[in-house]
């Protein structure tokens, strides 16, 4: 497949294709910047190519190389179900490239982010403002020569003194006072309303500037970035496993999926496979998180519509899910459970039974809420035909996940690019057709049921193996074993089995080996090996010492998982050291928020609330 694409492109744009190759099964084309618009247009419109979704657009800074920057486009074709990465080298002296925002609506925001982070200008972009950083910020933070420790005052005294505080937002490109239109001979002045950043329905922090004609929304400008925590910059400064706590804070309602997504990307870069049991554990934990996420989304939406009771019911169900997560990971939100090459620890004993009990509770609550809402006339009136996004718009804004499926497009990463044994599990993807809030609600409700089925199947298919420890006079508690090891009494230690809780990191060899890939480059050895053999100890140190650790070969990889909101992609560039050169996260709800202004145009003020609830904006992942 990639070969055909390369061939066609080389025939058509022979002068502009600098390079075309595949790496880790990713098709990559390096093109000249002058042809980027034509190539993108061709790729989007050509009947054989049909790359209709711009999944991601990111910048990379190769400081010291000429040309210094690179803009990376990740395209996806629904028709052929394949991805293509286009890389465009950009000169430092003239960091400029043609915009593609006329081809894909989402490119508008993506390009603003690249401008914000790297200072690359996009020629022809309608509105090239900063997006994640504030307007007064100086410099471009993701450039390699911007020190991570550098601090800037939020707003300087100088700024507050001599600025006339002109609104940076220009709605319909007019000054605010001229907002007069004539309707039926009456002169109408539109009202402006700042919804957010501090507003009860704007959970997370987000600002919407509304231009209102009575209760009707004429236009809306969405401002984000209030929760920007430099996730990408941080990830470049720390070793690979150290990024996991940061990924917890992306989508903090379903952090396990972020963990899994990041781990799988690094594993793709390293070209390693995890053990079967580990794959199923990752599936189970992901699906539990997905249920928690959907429960939160629907519950919060119902609450904002005034149906507080449905919200509390769902919070109870979510509590059941959080308890399950807590039993495995020891935490509820900041779980940091997954590791490159495995997971932190195996599932606790009799976990399957516990999950069965909790899923029963969740199903009961879902049934309850079905009764409360699904055919409730007021609820249906409030959500049906509200926040409609057509199929074309959804694709152009590169929506993914429940929102894309509500608009009638069958795309789910778990089906299209199965990872972690999702292909061995039998489940269905619900598809909507109207693209309104009601369809999104129904899809999320059904997906929770499907997730329950996935969890049950995963438990059935998961290899069991020797989980129970042999108690024949051999075992010593893990901490005692560690003490012995430290004092050099290592005789026969390798053959002994420690009695510990299976959820304790690195202890208990049988558990450990079940969930860690047998790969010395990434997996910490079990404590028995560390304290019992010189190979284990060396392996341990090689992974722990600064400057060593996990060192993927020079290269790059894009990998996506189906987050609760849609395609959660990671694009990682490795320069061969133990720290990533670039970690780019493609947050699913970035696209939703980019399309939100369009979604509510012409709607009523009251419709903003269910529409916003249905896109499930999670500020942690939106602003990174």
């Amino acid at each position: 497949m990639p070969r055909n694409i390369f061939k066609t492109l080389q025939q058509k744009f022979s002068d502009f294709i600098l390079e075309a190759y595949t790496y880790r099964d990713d098709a990559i084309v390096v093109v000249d910047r002058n042809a980027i618009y034509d190539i993108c247009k061709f790729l989007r419109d050509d009947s054989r190519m049909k790359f209709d979704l711009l999944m991601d657009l990111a910048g990379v800074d190769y400081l010291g190389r000429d040309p210094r920057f690179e803009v990376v486009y990740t395209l996806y074709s629904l028709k052929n179900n394949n991805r293509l990465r286009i890389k465009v080298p950009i000169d430092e002296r003239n960091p400029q490239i043609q915009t593609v925002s006329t081809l894909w609506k989402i490119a508008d925001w993506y390009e603003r982010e690249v401008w914000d982070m790297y200072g690359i200008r996009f020629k022809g972009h309608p509105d090239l403002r900063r997006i994640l950083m504030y307007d007064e910020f100086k410099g471009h933070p993701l450039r390699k020569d911007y020190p991570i420790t550098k601090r800037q005052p939020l707003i300087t005294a100088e700024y507050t003194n001599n600025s006339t505080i002109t609104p940076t937002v220009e709605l319909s490109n007019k000054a605010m006072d001229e907002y007069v239109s004539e309707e039926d001979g009456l002169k109408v002045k539109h009202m402006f309303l700042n919804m957010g950043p501090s507003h009860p329905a704007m959970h997370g922090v987000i600002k919407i500037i509304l231009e209102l004609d009575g209760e009707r929304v004429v236009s809306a400008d969405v401002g984000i970035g209030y929760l920007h925590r430099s996730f990408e910059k941080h990830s470049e400064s720390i070793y690979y496993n150290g990024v996991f706590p940061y990924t917890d804070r992306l989508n903090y309602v379903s952090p396990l999926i972020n963990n899994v997504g990041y781990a799988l990307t690094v594993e793709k870069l390293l070209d390693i496979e995890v053990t079967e049991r580990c794959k199923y554990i990752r599936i189970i934990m992901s699906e539990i998180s997905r249920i928690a996420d959907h429960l939160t989304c629907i519950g919060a939406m119902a609450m904002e519509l005034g149906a507080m009771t449905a919200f509390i019911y769902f919070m109870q169900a979510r509590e059941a899910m959080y308890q399950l997560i807590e039993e495995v990971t020891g935490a509820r939100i900041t779980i940091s459970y997954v590791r490159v090459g495995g997971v932190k620890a195996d599932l606790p004993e009799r976990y399957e039974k516990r999950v069965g009990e909790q899923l029963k509770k969740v199903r009961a609550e879902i049934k309850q809420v079905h009764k409360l809402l699904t055919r409730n006339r007021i609820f249906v009136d409030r959500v049906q035909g509200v926040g409609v996004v057509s199929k074309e718009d959804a694709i152009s804004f590169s929506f993914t996940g429940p929102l894309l499926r509500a608009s009638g497009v069958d795309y789910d990463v778990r089906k299209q690019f199965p990872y972690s044994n999702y292909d061995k599990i039998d489940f269905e993807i619900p598809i909507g057709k109207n693209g309104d809030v009601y369809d999104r609600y129904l899809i999320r409700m059904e997906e929770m049921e499907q997730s329950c089925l996935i969890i049950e199947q995963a438990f059935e298919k998961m290899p069991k193996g020797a989980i129970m420890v042999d108690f024949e006079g051999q075992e010593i508690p893990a901490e005692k074993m560690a003490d012995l090891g430290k004092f050099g009494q290592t005789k026969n230690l390798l053959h002994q089995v420690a009695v510990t809780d299976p959820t304790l990191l690195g202890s208990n060899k049988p558990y450990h080996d079940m969930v860690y890939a047998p790969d010395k480059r990434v997996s910490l050895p079990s404590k028995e090996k560390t304290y019992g053999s010189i190979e284990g100890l060396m392996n341990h140190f090689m992974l722990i010492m600064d400057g060593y650790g996990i060192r993927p070969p020079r290269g790059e990889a894009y990998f996506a998982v189906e987050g609760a909101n849609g395609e959660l992609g990671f694009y990682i560039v490795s320069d061969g050291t133990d720290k990533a050169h670039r970690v780019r996260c493609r947050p699913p709800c970035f696209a939703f928020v980019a399309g939100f202004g369009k979604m509510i145009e012409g709607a009523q003020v009251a419709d903003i609330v269910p529409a916003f609830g249905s896109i499930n904006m999670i500020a942690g992942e939106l602003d990174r």
Partner: protein
Amino acid sequence: MVEGIGIVLLKLAFVLLFVLNFGGLLTWVERKQSALMQDRIGANRASIFGIRLIGLFHTIADAVKMFTKESFRPVAAEKFLFTIGPGISVFFALVGFAVIPFGDVLIIGGKEINLQLAPLNIGVLYLFAVAGMAVYGVVLGAWASKNNFALLGGLRASAQMISYEVALGVTIIGSLMIYQTVELQEIVRWQGGTLWGWLPKWGVLMQPVGFILFLTVGIAQSKRVPFDAPEGESEIIGYFLEYSGMGFGMYMLTDFVETVMISAITVTLFLGGWQVPYLMADGFHFPWGATWQLENWAVALLQVGSFTLKVMFFLWLQMTIRWTLPRFRYDQIMRLGWKYILPISLVNILITGLIITLLK
């Protein structure tokens, strides 16, 4: 003369205590009932000397909090209107109770005391006039805050309350045609009779459609879920957005007082007010012939108790509705009012008129 004033003051004290206590207690009921419905514990932290009394002290704690909080006024606000807004609101909610009869006649020392604060012969009209004024408190407060969110809330409130005002009047015309009076005490007395000798002639049986419509419109008038678009806490935060301290407290109290008010009017118009089935002025007269003589004071006590119980039932019903349903959108409320409730009420009047004429 002095005696007369004393009696009026006593009645006034009773009504005010009744209403304000119910209003205050509703803050507790709302928390506790929502907690029950949502499998929570609810408010139970406030305590006096370690006694918690299932959270009842929260009512007091709330009042203390409201009074001691800073009453903040935005710089741009219209000073005078901003200050009197909540007062207007709560005033008109309270004065409506003047005409609600809470019992028949109590005889003390040969003196007949009408258990109604103000026996007005235009009782129903007075009620509607007062209910119509309530919107001013909301709109003035909202406008005077000089806040766009509050303004939206005020606009919604005025549109909603004025529209439903019309419906409110029309829905009970059917009942008034049957009762042939607009004095509330008389209306209640009329409902004391029986149908076919055994069925109490309560308004709800005579006018079932009117009853349901009136209750709906009543809830809409009190601006509570599902008709709380003027407040819309997750959309526009509400017309009282800029209020804090007791200003906000008075708006909240208005909400609760109006809830009590709606219950009281519904009970008076449709559930026989203070009537207890088969209870006459001198005791029970059961349809199967048995009688049970009672003293006048006992009858009065039973009547007041009956009225209170019925009001409590409707409070419970309104709370249940409030915690079950989501919120309407503003235009949906308008559509419901003008396109459904008003025409159905008109048809109801027509049919009632036909039946009355035919039965004559």
